[in-house]
């Protein structure tokens, strides 16, 4: 009988400990979730408060009863936000497209073709992965300036159309396709280029999609290079636009309109993320880094 109660006691205390452990875990996790989400909430909230309402709140309110879309109208009319978005979209699409072509060809050469000097070339490529962008940006700035490409799309795009890391990633992927597929195609008289287009690219589609998404995120958020290379508003990307808005747009104090612009800029990527969150997270954990 005594033993029974002992066991019950042990059972009870174990259960209690488990419950408290769980509660603490959830509190911690939810707390961090709030820290992550709160800025987003605040940005949306502020963006729908009217200018006068916002400025009259000495103590900021956590909600608003009279939401307005006027700030969004202001964001598109008072500053060329539409132009910034368009520029960024053009920059992102062209950069990503050109990069995909360049890295696919290079990865194919490394993975499938045999040629003299391949190994040395590959080692040189790999060692380039260690070069930080900050080191080469100076000369690139001078180069682009000397080529008179400042404030042009080629000037924005050209330096970022290759990525050694993505070449490496894709090459690894290409190499997993069995050799026999290549031989089968060769026996059938398929040219290398056709084999690449018809067989390798379709099979490697998941990796290519991952690379595309990661590059799109990178392009959409790029700030440093566009800042160096553009000082004409007509070529600003969203990051530069935001900085410009902050320093010169709306009059410094129209925070709600600023937040509306921030929402507009953030939304495309957040939508992309919500659709592809599995792919994006998978791709990043396979070796992407921020920036």
């Amino acid at each position: 009988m005594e033993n029974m109660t002992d066991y019950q006691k042990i059972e009870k205390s174990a259960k209690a400990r488990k419950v408290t452990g769980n509660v603490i875990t959830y509190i911690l996790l939810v707390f961090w979730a709030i820290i992550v989400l709160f800025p987003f909430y605040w940005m949306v909230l502020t963006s729908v408060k009217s200018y006068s309402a916002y400025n009259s709140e000495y103590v900021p309110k956590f909600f608003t009863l009279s939401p307005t879309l006027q700030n969004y109208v202001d964001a598109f009319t008072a500053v060329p936000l539409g132009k910034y978005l368009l520029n960024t979209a053009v920059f992102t699409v062209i950069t990503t497209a050109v990069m995909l072509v360049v890295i696919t060809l290079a990865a194919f050469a490394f993975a499938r073709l045999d040629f003299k000097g391949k190994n040395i070339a590959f080692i040189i490529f790999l060692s380039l992965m260690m070069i930080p962008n900050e080191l080469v940006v100076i000369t690139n700035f001078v180069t682009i300036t000397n080529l008179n490409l400042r404030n042009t799309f080629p000037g924005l795009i050209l330096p970022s159309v290759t990525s050694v890391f993505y070449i490496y990633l894709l090459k690894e992927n290409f190499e997993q396709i069995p050799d026999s597929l290549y031989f089968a195609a060769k026996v059938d008289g398929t040219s290398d280029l056709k084999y690449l287009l018809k067989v390798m690219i379709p099979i490697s589609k998941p990796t290519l999609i991952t690379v595309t998404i990661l590059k799109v995120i990178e392009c959409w958020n790029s700030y440093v290079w566009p800042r160096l290379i553009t000082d004409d508003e007509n070529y600003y990307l969203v990051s530069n636009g935001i900085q410009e808005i902050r320093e010169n747009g709306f009059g410094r104090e129209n925070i709600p309109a600023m937040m509306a612009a921030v929402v507009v800029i953030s939304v495309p990527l957040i939508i992309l993320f919500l659709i592809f969150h599995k792919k994006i997270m998978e791709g990043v954990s396979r070796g992407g880094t921020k920036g």
Partner: protein
Amino acid sequence: MEVVLQNLTKKFRSRDRKNPQDVIAVNDFNFKIPDGKLIGLLGPSGCGKSTTLNLISGLIKPTSGRILFGEDDVTDLPPENRGIGLVFQNYALYPHLTVKQNILFPLQNLKGKDKLSKPEMLEKAVAAAKLVQIDELMDRKPGELSGGQQQRVAIARALVKMPRVLLLDEPLSNLDARLRLQTREEIRRIQRETKITTIFVTHDQEEAMSISDMIVVMKEGVVQQIGKPQEVYDSPVNLFVAKFLGTPPINVFEGQVRDNQLFIGEDAVLDVAGVENQEVYVGIRPEGFLLKEDGPFCCSLSGVEVMGRDISVVSTNKASLNPTVRSIVGTENKINIEAASVRFELKPAKVFLFHKKTEERIDFEVRV
């Protein structure tokens, strides 16, 4: 199409840096493959049979020697210009294409005057699919098919452009036992219908024997014997071939020839005329034993396995090079399982003598 291999040799550079000797994968292969036959290239792994197939396909270039398809010397021709169909061991189907697209793929590569219109291509693809009986599966992807079906698709893809020569690399090794039986009959049938000279590689002697018109037995890059399956089985040129063909495998003993008599241990088991006195290896096929109470060859009995059609007698003998001696006898024989030993008479046609050093077969006359 007749395929002629002349002094075909392939050496590979050794990967081992300490021992940079070339590896000879195929050594001086000479063979004229008659038109419209099914040929089995047979041997243990690493014997050079796959290399030979790849040489014929053109995926690798020979170190020396020529390859002729009929009158054409194709030695330096790239694979796509040779007019061959090739089926890979793992089938190498394009995983992202449907069965139909897979079969169409080779046709879409044709250029110039060979170029086909879309309906023509489709017609040919359907015909090839019908031939291998997969016309029901045209819109599936390879991942949705069973191994046997994938195999058929691979064959259809190889056949669709009507190759002059069809090459199959271990076509059955990825299939389970029952499918293997079925599929090999299928290959035989397709070959008969199309009359395309077909060469296939296998390490399974039963497979090769059962469907080939001719088999080529290889060992370490060297051709051992070429012939019709039954001929090779009945008169192997050396111990290796004798051991490689037949299930259960041949029983091998140490023996001596003394005064036209063959001794295994102390038993004089057979009269062999025309053979000099010497030490020999004796190979006896399992079906070469006859149970006889006063037979000359005595073995200690260890067991009997009844297999329905016939009986397998398992026994041991000191002179045997295998752990047990296996003989197959008819079910009409009655065996006393309790007995300590069993006596056999030997069928002379099923007994082979091999030279102790060279392991070449020694002919002997049978005295009746």
